[in-house]
Every structure is written in C-alpha cells, then in structure tokens.
C-alpha cells in the first residue's frame, strides 16, 4: 500500500504531561487512522531543531488515550511514491483540533527522541517488520502523536508511515 510522509515545520513545542490536553500548534503532529479498520505502520521519524539558543527538548512518540477530533487542521501529508494512486481513505493528521489529543500515561512513550533544539537532530528508523502500528481511529490503538514532555524547542521534521 501507499507510503506517506506527514511533515511539520518550525513548531514551537509546549511541554505537556501524560493524559493532559495538548496545545494547538504546540506539538509536532498526531497521526490517526482514517477509518475504524485502517492500519498504519510508522517506520521513520525525524526531528531537526531550529531554536536560536540551547533548548533541550524531550520528545515522546506514543499512543494517545484521547484522540483528536473536530476541526482538524495543520501539517502536511504527501505520498512518497510518485505513481501511487491515492486510496479512497487516507490517514488523519494535524496539530490543531477542537478535541485535543492526550498522550497515554501507559502507552504514550513508545519512543523517546530527545534533542537539543539548538541545531540538534534526532532520527529513528524501524527495523523492517518492526514498525510501530496503529489500528482504527479511536483510543488507544488508533492514534499516535509526537509531542514534548519537557522543553520548548522549535522543531521541524517528518513521520513516514504506510497505510496498510
């Protein structure tokens, strides 16, 4: 199936604790299945820091116990293969919503990507067959997000995933 990259640019992180509502544009992105049966497989995450001074930022990628809903917008999503025919249903992504995502206290830390946002980078690539998966579009299997636990660095980056 088709592989996509969801990108985000120059986002100033707002630190958020587990099980607390994220702030619009204050986290990198969420990624949610486009239907109750859609599976997504995340195989790469990249973060590049753009802060003008030292700003250690602890980013967490993991599942959300409350999923984003209503008036969703923000970020970019592009198919990677130029000749891919877009499926009828695509994943939902963004950094703005009426119902804000909340990082799960138990499943919300699948991957820690800490970096100093003063020019630092953090990149993770999955081993083939060991991608992080989501299933459906509801908590807690249906959405993952990338957000700051501590630190307010400015970051850009992408999450590469496949719609299965």
């Amino acid at each position, binding site marked *: 199936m088709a592989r996509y990259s969801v990108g985000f640019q120059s986002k100033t992180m707002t630190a958020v604790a587990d099980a607390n509502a994220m702030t619009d544009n204050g986290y990198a992105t969420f990624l949610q299945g486009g239907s*109750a049966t859609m599976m997504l497989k995340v195989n790469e995450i990249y973060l590049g820091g753009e802060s003008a001074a030292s700003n250690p930022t602890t980013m967490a990628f993991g599942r959300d116990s409350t999923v984003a809903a209503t008036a969703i917008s923000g970020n970019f999503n592009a198919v990677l293969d130029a000749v891919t025919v877009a499926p009828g249903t695509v994943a939902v992504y963004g950094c703005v919503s009426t119902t804000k995502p909340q990082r799960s206290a138990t499943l919300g830390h*699948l991957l820690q990507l800490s970096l100093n946002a003063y*020019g630092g980078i953090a990149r*993770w*690539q999955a081993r083939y067959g060991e991608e992080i998966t989501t*299933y*459906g579009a509801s908590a807690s299997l249906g959405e993952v997000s990338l957000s700051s636990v501590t630190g307010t660095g400015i970051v850009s980056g992408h999450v590469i995933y496949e719609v299965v």
Partner: protein
Amino acid sequence: MTLLITDGLPRGLGYLEVDNRASGERHFEADTYTCTHCQRVVVMNPLRKRERYKCGGCNHHICDDCAAVRATGAPCKTWAQKIDEVASQNRS
C-alpha cells in the same frame, strides 16, 4: 559452510541517531529493536552486560518490562495478536 551465530543478540536492527554537535554536545548512534509484545522501541545500550530476553513464544527479543511480566508466567501475546483481537471484535 553454515555460519551459526550464538551470541543471542538481535540482528538486522533499527537505528537511532541523536546529533547535538551543533550545540556543543554529543553525537549518539544506537541500534534499536521493537518489542513484539508492546511495540516500545528499545535503544540498545552498547555497555549493557545483562542478557536481552528473547521470548520463547514469539522467538523475538522483548523489552525488560514485558520480560518481567513474562517471567511471572504470563503467556506470550504479541501486539499483532492484540490488534487481531480488536479487528475480530470490530468484524463481529
């Protein structure tokens, strides 16, 4: 000739890079694997001496938390099996 690898370490790994050299700090690279039971990404500490637990049920390395649960006698249950259960509930 057949080569047998007997060190028990996972192979064909994922990759984590954290490069903070622009801020005068370190460049860190490490292999990773994903726990088949909970899908946490395990960053492999090259200084670790303790063995990494390989689940006999799914024949895959799992994280320390899941290894502790497994050691109490809990059965092997992979994340894929959990998703299959949710999917079958959705179908019924």
